[in-house]
């Protein structure tokens, strides 16, 4: 019996204060179909406003969703971050830029098609990057959320799954100790490689 039963993202939900721009970005620019919406009167606690919950198809039957709350003013005035979370000058850029949604495409042609759509809009591609084994484009949506579109440069190999397991086991050990560092992780990982990788063989495909 397969114990890993989940089937990907049903929906990931975010608040918006600008539904018109959000629709222009996701539906009109990226051409993600609107596939569902809920018009809801305030419910539950007395202070819950009326709201619209609306969904865009991001492929594979997965969806990105938004909440628009009538009468709610922006919850912070920071210039950095997104409409959900703002950050002051003390928070470094790499941290502010860490949280994002990455949407998969199958080919370079598809990636460049989305780049064309973005570049013709008010939200042009900000960055196109060749990572280790993926290539990605990035922009921020009208709400300040970072959106990545990405393609695999090659399939993931079985040894990369083993490598990831060893990394995570080493990370959990090192992060539980004082002063975790990359050097400590790589030192522990070398021990795990000797213990477990020497006799490792790729699983036979079923």
């Amino acid at each position, binding site marked *: 019996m397969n114990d890993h039963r989940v089937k990907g993202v049903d929906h990931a939900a975010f608040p918006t204060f600008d539904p018109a721009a959000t629709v222009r970005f996701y539906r009109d620019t990226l051409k993600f179909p609107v596939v569902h919406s809920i018009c809801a009167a305030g419910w539950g606690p007395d202070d819950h406003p009326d709201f619209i919950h609306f969904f865009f198809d991001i492929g594979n039957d997965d969806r990105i969703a938004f909440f628009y709350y009538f009468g709610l003013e922006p919850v912070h005035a920071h210039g950095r971050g997104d409409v959900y979370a703002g950050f002051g000058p003390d928070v470094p850029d790499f941290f502010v830029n860490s949280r994002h949604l990455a949407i998969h495409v199958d080919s370079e042609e598809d990636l460049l098609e989305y780049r064309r759509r973005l570049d013709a809009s008010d939200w042009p591609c900000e960055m196109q*990057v*060749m*990572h*280790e*084994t993926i290539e990605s484009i990035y922009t921020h949506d009208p709400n300040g959320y970072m959106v990545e579109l990405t393609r695999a440069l*090659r399939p993931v*190999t*079985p*040894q*990369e799954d*083993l*490598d990831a397991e*060893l990394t995570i086991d080493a990370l959990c050990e090192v992060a539980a100790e004082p002063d975790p560092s990359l*050097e400590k992780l*790589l*030192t522990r*990982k*070398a021990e*795990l*490689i*000797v213990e*477990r*990788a*020497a*006799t*490792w063989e*790729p699983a036979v495909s079923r």
Partner: protein
Amino acid sequence: MTAIFVLDVPENEGVVRVAEQDAQLQVEKVGPYFRIDAGGGEIVIDRRATGCRHAVWYSALAGLQDARVAQHDKDALRVVRR
């Protein structure tokens, strides 16, 4: 026995090739990893000689045995005895 491990994936081929061409270094296979041993000396890999682009270069190191990274920048990876 100062040594590093590098995973056997196509992106890391340049690192392994440069190590194999260095008479000071011994390269052996440990499962799906390459173990690059400096004996009692240092491991120095020139990034440009590997042809690795930056994202690959900065994530090529999988393990450190009796080793400390003294330099890992756009020019070189230098690993010394700990």
